[in-house]
């Protein structure tokens, strides 16, 4: 198990290196003068000179690459053009909002999906199944931002129950992220974007849970459990659910990684000040240092969660953790 974990961590570092290198290539080798991408015309002479030096933009490409990597390792991501702030600071302000939105919506979606999926596995056929499965598929098929637009129009613009965007009402200012967590206003703003994401995300765990549950219920050891005269409850909870949850847990970890980058459109629709919206703004305004930083952060989270998913699976399934065949 430990060996497996170390192997995965080594793999993680390699993938991270490859992804950051690819990012470098993407941002430097695109058409146009790449050095100009990183220097805003509005910067003062000193700033320009300092940036040129710190990013080695006047040096040959391979030297720039080494400097880029060194900067990355030190957590130095440069200055945003528009906001005139350090990229790291801007990302640090946005990240908690994204994490909160993702964790809240994903947890609700999985809690609902797992229970509903398990229920559907038992209620084969009939009207419930005929309605539930297409609806679960439909929410996965709808564009997230369109779901958001519908909710926004209905509940915010027309009914007026929820704010139309942002994380706080105008005029309100909260000192730190921890104070915003206890602010009712913050949660009130969070409700609609979280609901949108939850609607979009619940389909996967629901269908996955149902499918694996049906799969497991068909396994011979479940037949054996019935032969043993175990109660339905023991069979479902101790044997079926325990086995069926394995892929769902993996999907949760993968979903966590994917959602942090995938929130881009929902954050934009609701003007939710998270990483995704920051990235969209940066890209739209050609604020390349910020775009690059946000991209690397999102990718890093994704790579990390992929590894976590893998480790979680190994941890939960003795067949993997003890080196048996899958």
């Amino acid at each position, binding site marked *: 198990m430990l060996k497996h974990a170390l192997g995965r961590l080594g793999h993680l570092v390699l993938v991270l290196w490859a992804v950051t290198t690819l990012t470098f290539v993407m941002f430097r080798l695109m058409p146009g003068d790449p050095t100009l991408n990183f220097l805003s015309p509005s910067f003062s002479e000193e700033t320009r000179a300092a940036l040129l030096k710190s990013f080695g933009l006047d040096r040959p490409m391979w030297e720039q690459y080494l400097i880029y990597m060194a900067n990355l390792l030190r957590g130095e991501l440069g200055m945003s053009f528009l906001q005139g702030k350090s990229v790291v600071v801007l990302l640090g302000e946005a990240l908690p909002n994204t994490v909160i939105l993702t964790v809240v919506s994903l947890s609700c979606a999985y809690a609902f999906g797992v229970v509903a999926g398990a229920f559907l596995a038992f209620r084969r056929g009939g009207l419930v199944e005929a309605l539930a499965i297409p609806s679960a598929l439909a929410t996965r098929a709808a564009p997230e931002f369109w779901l958001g637009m519908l909710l926004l129009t209905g509940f915010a613009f027309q009914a007026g129950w929820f704010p139309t965007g942002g994380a706080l009402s105008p005029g309100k200012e909260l000192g730190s992220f921890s104070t915003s967590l206890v602010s009712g206003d913050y949660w009130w703003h969070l409700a609609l974007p979280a609901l949108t994401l939850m609607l979009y995300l619940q389909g996967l765990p629901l269908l996955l849970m149902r499918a694996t549950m049906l799969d497991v219920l068909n*396994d*011979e*050891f479940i*037949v*054996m*459990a*019935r*032969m*043993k*005269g*175990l*109660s339905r409850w*023991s069979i479902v909870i*101790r*044997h079926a659910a*325990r*086995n069926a949850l*394995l892929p769902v847990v993996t999907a949760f970890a993968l979903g966590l990684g994917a959602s942090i980058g995938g929130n881009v459109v929902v954050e934009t629709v609701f003007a939710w000040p998270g990483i995704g919206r920051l990235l969209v703004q940066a890209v739209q305004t050609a604020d390349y240092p910020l775009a690059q930083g946000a991209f690397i952060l999102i990718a890093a989270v994704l790579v990390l969660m992929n590894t976590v998913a893998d480790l979680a699976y190994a941890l*939960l*399934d*003795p*067949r993997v953790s*003890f080196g*048996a065949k899958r």
Partner: protein
Amino acid sequence: MSLLSVRDLTVTYDTQRGPVRAVDGLDLDVPAGSITGLVGESGCGKSTLGRALMGVLPDRGKIAAGEVIFEGQDLQTFSASARRALRWRRMAFIPQTAMNALDPVQRLSAQMAEILIERGGLSGREATARSSELFRLVGLDPARLAAYPHHFSGGMRQRASIALALALNPSLVIADEPVTALDVIVQRQVLDVLRELQARLQLSMILVTHDMAVVAYACDRVAVMYAGQIVEAGLAAEVLERPLHPYTMGLTHAFPDVHDSQMSLVPIEGSPPDLHTPPPGCRFAARCPFADARCNNEPPPSRPFGPDHLVACWHAEDATTLRGRAADPQTWAAIA
């Protein structure tokens, strides 16, 4: 009196081509304290019968008719919960592929304790002690209780399955091809464990198999099953030495004998009938070298023939001469 007595049992499956009678009007008696071999080729309904006796058929299957009288009570009159209460306490099951039959993500100790605590009403500590005892009984090191099923070899898994089956001291154990997937030496060891425990605990056992040699080695009695029915049943010594049904005769010549280099094997050409549309007469008639017009039209009834020997064949009277002819492959080749 029989421990288990099955009368006119019919099990049907719903398939896309309509219902099929996997077990059709079957009679079977299992006396207390004996091992009864249930032998036949695949698809003849052996496994279905085993599951039906346990009361755990797949969703598409159901017992359509008949009685299952176990320890003097007709199980078909039992409520679902009464039936469930009986399971594993009075009758237990040993599956063919123990790998799939054990929960892959739980240690053997947990799977053992589950039965002992939930069904046996033992405390956690008692369950641990009893688990060790059971493991020792089947020749496994109790230290291996902490292992997961995939750590076990095939033979060890089968032993663990036996330990699980014996957990609640059942009076009847149904073993569904328990040694088919095993190598000869392991097969012999597992059979020896079964035989020894049967004798020591005075169990009754139904041993489902396709191998006449396994029956000869381990069983006191044998029931030969073909196309959902018992075609011949009786004491193993009697049935194996003096088979009355041509199918049984064929089966006894279907395996090579390790000590006999002169024997020629007999293939039973053809395949079992489609049970969606069973033939009107004897179900074996189409593959039987001795079948005549009556065999093709009238189903032979099961009738006693000598002490403790039942057979369903119109030609049982001629068995002595047929036996000689059945040993010759040419007799059977004519069918192909």
